């Protein structure tokens, strides 16, 4: 029902979507994130992704379990690419099936928002003149060591 994968290979989006097929579902949504050419005036040649795999898989699974409770989704598959991802290639695919479309759209959006701020995966942006790891200025992961997450997620379920 819930599937997580980190892969060095190209993501087969149709396979990710097929994984959430269910007779119980009236809606399926698949979101794909792709390497964008232009970011803040810089032309990106490619991105490189790195993960702390044990924790990344655990966090992705935890987010899926939360989505089941919050959105009553039927199935979910998340595949994230690692290594070099060229412009136009898919870096992440999130597929969700649900009884109705509202829950499918909402849960896919929620999952992507959470992936971008909670899961230990990092991108390195490479262009003709430089390469740099992206660590968003406004992000403070140290809060994860104070137990904020469980409270925040519990509140959302109330």
């Amino acid at each position: 029902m819930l599937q997580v994968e980190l892969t060095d290979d190209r993501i087969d989006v149709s396979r990710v979507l097929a994984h959430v097929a269910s007779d119980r579902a009236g809606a399926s949504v698949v979101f794909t994130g792709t390497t964008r050419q232009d970011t803040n005036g810089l032309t990106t040649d490619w991105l490189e992704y790195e993960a702390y795999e044990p924790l990344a898989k655990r966090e992705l699974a935890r987010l899926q379990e939360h989505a089941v409770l919050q959105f009553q989704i039927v199935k979910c598959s998340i595949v994230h690419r690692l290594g070099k991802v060229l412009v136009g290639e898919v870096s992440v695919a999130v597929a969700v099936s649900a009884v109705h479309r509202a829950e499918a759209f909402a849960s896919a959006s929620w999952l992507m928002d959470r992936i971008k701020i909670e899961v230990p995966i990092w991108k390195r942006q490479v262009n003709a003149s430089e390469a740099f790891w992206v660590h968003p200025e406004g992000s403070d992961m140290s809060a994860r060591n104070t137990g904020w997450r469980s409270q925040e997620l519990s509140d959302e379920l109330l």
Partner: protein
Amino acid sequence: MSDRHGQLGSVDVENQVYVKLFAGFAESAGVKEVRVAVKQFTVAEVRCALERKLPHLASLLSRSAIAIDGRYAVENDLICTSSEIAVIPPVSGG
């Protein structure tokens, strides 16, 4: 100075722990794993030890989480010499 895995550091064996580094934190440190001496086996002390070892990364460390054995830790969690410790700088997946 030991270089078993390309780590930095020279410390008392009984008080040393290994810490995995990732992304820009590893790039700025110049290694993927660092060995540090701790006075107490707590997450908070690991932070202090990393600050002593890598003072130029203090700012990024302050915005990073510490993971123990593949889970985000709480500051007063205890560690041991066999714990898998990792620094998780601000993430950017997706």
